[in-house]
């Protein structure tokens, strides 16, 4: 867009951080107002409408539709992978609690591991407390409605997401020798965690998913719906060759939940 049109003249001696940050806040607010943290169950028709004139996506939606019953959307706020993961896995535990004792044990122990990695206790305590409260409620067999209400409470949900991020950070740092090979931009694993994992709203990549599934012993299948030529979605299981507990749909920059 031409600068004259917007009445804006760039002044290279000025610092525009504030204005740009304010604009970013506006965009975030709009997303918050328009999208729920986790939606109700939806049919794939919503995707069909979104990609009305896009044959590549229409074919892939058809492929997903032939293998899955329905989906659930998550808010596109950069936390969607973690939000989707937490919801789908806890919902899975509500239906089938055979993995609950193991998962709870891993979850409770995780705090001491983070402390031993050097996270100051007072910075992680509140997040771990909320994380365990939610897990305990699921263990106490709350109803689906109660669970949905709990998990879509912004405060609780965000604290749950923060803690999942910390688990990923802890795992990456613990297995630094391995993960350092996958960190881009000449950064150390610790720098990567500080910049790409621990802050809210930073999007997740393969490396986050690999670390989270390994740390918690939970298996995921991701269906990739992208602009690739194929009529079908590629899929990837984390870890490779496992039987998935939960299913996620990836579209560039975003994760939603799938139900077979």
């Amino acid at each position, binding site marked *: 867009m031409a600068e004259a049109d917007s009445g804006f003249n760039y002044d290279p*001696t*000025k*610092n*525009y*951080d504030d204005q*740009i*940050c304010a604009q*970013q806040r506006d965009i975030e607010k709009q997303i918050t107002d328009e999208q729920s943290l986790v939606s109700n169950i939806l049919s794939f028709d919503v995707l069909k409408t979104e990609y009305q004139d896009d044959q590549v996506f229409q074919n892939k939606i058809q492929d997903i539709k032939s293998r899955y019953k329905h989906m659930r959307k998550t808010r596109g706020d950069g936390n969607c992978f973690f939000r989707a993961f937490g919801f789908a896995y806890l919902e899975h535990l509500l239906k089938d609690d055979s993995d609950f004792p193991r998962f709870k044990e891993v979850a409770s122990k995780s705090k001491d591991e983070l402390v031993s990695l050097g*996270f*100051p206790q*007072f*910075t*992680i*305590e*509140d*997040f771990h407390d909320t994380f365990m409260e939610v897990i305990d409620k699921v263990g106490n067999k709350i109803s689906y409605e109660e669970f949905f209400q709990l998990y879509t409470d*912004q*405060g609780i949900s*965000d*604290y749950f997401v*923060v803690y999942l991020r*910390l688990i990923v950070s802890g795992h990456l740092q613990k297995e630094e020798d391995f993960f350092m090979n996958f960190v881009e*931009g*000449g*950064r150390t694993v610790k*720098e990567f965690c*500080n*910049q*790409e994992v*621990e*802050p*809210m*709203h*930073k999007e997740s990549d393969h490396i986050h998913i690999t670390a989270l599934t390994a740390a918690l012993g939970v298996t995921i299948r991701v269906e990739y719906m992208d602009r690739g030529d194929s009529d079908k979605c590629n899929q990837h299981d984390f870890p490779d060759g496992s039987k998935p507990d939960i299913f996620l749909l990836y579209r560039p920059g975003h994760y939603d939940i799938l139900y077979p």
Partner: protein
Amino acid sequence: MAGSALKRLMAEYKQLTLNPPEGIIAGPVNEENFFEWEALIMGPEGTCFEGGIFPARLTFPSDYPLSPPKMKFTCEIFHPNIYPDGRVCISILHAPGDDPMGYETSAERWSPVQSVEKILLSVVSMLAEPNDESAANVDAAKTWREDKTKFQEVAERTVRKSLGL
């Protein structure tokens, strides 16, 4: 989430009182309002700010520590990373992506496991080593880069002023 923020701020205050970092005092302006803190920062030794005591305000959002606080010096201070009105502009006060001007890629960022203590320690390092790449005070950055003697003089004046001399 103001309840969670308050709980965390009280924990941080306790932590800072029990193990105060060298050259830094910080705490709520009054116990009625934990979302507004005052900090006193001593100019780091061996720098042109040595000997000064610089007061600043920290304002915490209701979703702290998901979002970072804002920090503003309430005294006169001429520094590349401090706006002329006193606002502090360093990477740890920003989540990644909040810096179109670009901080160094290795720069420490805000995340919920950072803390007031980490911020204040970063501010002390910033006083010792200005970063003229992402300048909040263009004039100060230019002086720092081109005329160290003048920068030194201005700094020494603010040091005396901060002590009420």
